[in-house]
């Protein structure tokens, strides 16, 4: 695997998707970085453990975490950053293979691919959910700490 090449390509692809979704111009670069980190994490997990579903979960998780952090920094909605990063993880090739096998009347093979595509979509959703919950807990904890520092106590 060619790391710099894949990093560059995923950066470019996520930035291009940023243009398609018309995200604010000054966030294009950070959006590309989100896509790059998600894809690189996904690829390295995939190469290490050879499980596309877990790898997609990890990739989506990283995308959402980075997007949350950037959203706090830029004070902008979180979807601006996460949306382009999610796209490379979408199981396009598996859905395509499922479709092709259906057309070729090879239904057993098609079901195999379709179930994989479904599981990977679920993994993307779970990755987003986990990251969201963890970040919310973290932000709540942080807010409480600042409140304590400033002398407010909560009943």
């Amino acid at each position, binding site marked *: 695997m060619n790391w710099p090449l894949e990093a560059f*390509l995923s950066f470019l*692809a996520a930035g291009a998707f940023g*243009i398609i979704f018309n995200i*604010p111009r000054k*966030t294009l670069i950070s959006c590309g970085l989100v896509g790059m980190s998600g894809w690189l994490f996904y690829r390295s997990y995939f190469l290490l453990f050879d499980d596309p579903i877990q790898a997609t979960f990890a990739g989506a998780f990283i995308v959402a975490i980075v997007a949350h952090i950037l959203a706090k920094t830029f004070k902008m909605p979180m979807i601006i950053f996460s949306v382009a990063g999610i796209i*490379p993880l*979408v199981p396009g090739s598996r859905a395509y293979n499922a479709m*092709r096998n259906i057309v070729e009347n090879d239904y057993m093979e098609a079901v195999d691919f379709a179930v994989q595509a479904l599981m990977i979509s679920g993994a993307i959703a779970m990755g987003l959910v986990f990251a969201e919950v963890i970040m919310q807990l973290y932000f709540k904890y942080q807010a409480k700490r600042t409140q304590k520092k400033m002398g407010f106590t909560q009943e």
Partner: protein
Amino acid sequence: MAEISEVRRELALDCFLLAGKVMMESGAETYRVEDTMIRMAVSQNMMDSHCFVTPAGIMFSPSNDLPTRFVRIHGRRTDLERVARVNAVSRRLVAGQLTLQQAYEEMTEIEKNHYLFPLWLQVLAAAVASACFLILMGGGWADIPFAFVIGGIGFYIVEMVLIKTRVKFFAEFIGAVAIGTLAVLAVYSGFGNDPDTIIIGSVMPLVPGLLITNAVRDMMAGHFVSGLSMGAEAFLTAFAIGAGIAIVLSF
């Protein structure tokens, strides 16, 4: 609680509903729209306001004894810049940096304008994304020009059909048919190597990424009505693309 005059209250309601409408039309999540509207209402001393947002319309009730207002949301068009701008205005209103009148003027300004990138740039972006995905999905370098051109053409066709017919699924179906046909032709004429990776790379710009993320986040926030409807839209889009490709492959 401070008494709010009639005119000012109407202005505040107009402002909230406009903000919600613009955000919903530009592809924000439902729960974010509700959250923004309630925050703005609280900043204007409307403490017990209620708000119900669906992808088709927004209902907003300022308090128990005042009339409820409703706006209908027509077409949706992904334009995240508008979401970010409305969000910034509402933040400034809540922080007290803007008066209600100023905020309303800025909202109308945002509503009138579109901040979309020019179409040629979007087509170019789709072409670049297609070429990148071709390599990322394991395609060969020789196929790059085909993915670049076909991805751009497919995106352009979808946009054009969408403008002409206003039926999203039909547009995506036609786009997928065009992509499949062109990719098969490229390989058939002896220039392209692998139709599979060319097709996969080229349909990537049509994938409903925003709908998937929004559906998941809305479902998590407990907005099942909009979560399910957005999920259904994402599924139908994916199905339209798949059907378009399948038709080409079956010949």
